[in-house]
């Protein structure tokens, strides 16, 4: 799953003409480490929903990879 997440994150970065990241781990924060702002997160959540069928931000915001994985796994 993390490979898929990395691909999605890099897709968002690439679409916005920003440098891709090489690796992710549980503690990486989407806002502070990846540098996503609200617009990027909005795009990220659409891509996640397309891939996994879940709106990870529906009830509350998540920030770390660990939280994203937890949401996807339900």
């Amino acid at each position, binding site marked *: 799953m993390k490979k898929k997440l990395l691909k999605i994150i890099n897709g968002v970065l690439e679409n*916005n*003409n920003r440098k891709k990241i090489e690796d992710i781990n549980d503690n990486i924060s989407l*806002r*502070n480490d990846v540098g996503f702002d*609200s*617009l990027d997160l*909005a*795009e990220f959540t*659409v891509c996640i929903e397309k891939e996994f069928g879940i709106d990870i931000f529906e009830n*509350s915001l998540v920030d770390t990879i660990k939280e994203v994985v937890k949401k996807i796994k339900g």
Partner: protein
Amino acid sequence: MSKIFFYNLLDNEKILYEDLLNRLNKKNMFYYPYCYTKKYSDIFINILVSLLADDEIVLLDSDFSKEELGNISINKEKLSIRKKVEYSPLKSVQDLIFRIKNASKWRTTLFSSGTTGLPKKITHNYFSITKEVKISKEKINNTWGFAYNPTHIAGLQVFFQALLNYNSIINLFQLSRKNIFKLIKKYQITNISATPTFYRQLLPPEDIFPNVERITFGGEKYDKKISKETKIIFPKAKILNVYALTETGTIFASKGDNFTLKDKYKDLIKVVNNELLIHKDLLGEFDLLELKNSSWYHTSDIVEIIKKNPLEFKFKYRKSEMINVGGYKVSPYEVEEVIRRHPKVQNVVVYGKSNSVMGNLIYCDIELKDKKITEKDVRLFLINKLQRFKIPRVINFVDNISTARTGKVKRL
């Protein structure tokens, strides 16, 4: 005097009221009547100098592209104009506030997304910008978290509310959540006014800040759930929901999503066919063609009447096709017009879809002349032509864009 006027972590800049007076009392003062800068403190000081000069200032979003500036007839020459001003030295902050309040000829022009695709020019005077500003001795110790674009009406209103009460302004706009929390605590912020999208980024609640006394929601449809969760972070805060337009500034405030009409507005606001109408006396100056020879401005906001006297209502939805992305209004026509200029694009339709982070997000369907471009190509083409929030975040390439019977592109 050592009180902070403005602090911005983004520019690592702290200006005390004392520094502000020194800057405003410099010799050979001037300001830029076409204000176009990323630095918030420069925007605020430019506004103050224009007020002291009792003259006009045009506020331009710092992320307007060259092309967007061109569309509103702003060129390099205009941006480089510096206007010399003369006024007697300021003696104190009270003196500054007194003079600002007497700037009877001062005008500021702002731009709001227009329904035709071109930004709409709206001019306000001191009275129309500050009509809902509340000044009192009890407010002197307030510290404001600044969470709006300073060239937009909501940002200006917070600026005046804070300045006229001699309050400190701490910028929270465009900061990470970690830094927002850090600053709320460090500077003991008491008041925050922001969009639901701003508060959404503070969730889930992790910490509590009892120092915050008032939270104001504006710019987007009120979100009860966000309001409830925000209350956990700021347990002592009173929550206020405001309705404002660039054309009017704030006109309603409520504790929830029901608004009650204040007595002073009773002849200036009415509901016709469920649409909220505002009398021209409450509007800033703008293209009167919009009013179509009537005294009433149609807001496109559809409301549900709860009580007739005094009028109590709540907002249902917007009739217009403008898309509200985290408090920024986007005209799909403007975005379509720019995308259509790509040599490989045959046709395009731009629309909004609801989004759990931004309220709404911009999507587009593109029909290509040949299949040789990617989503990234389209995005790169748009980067220097449109403000960031206007660029579609989801691009679908389709074989055929359906057209309605009239030949108009069908907006989904």
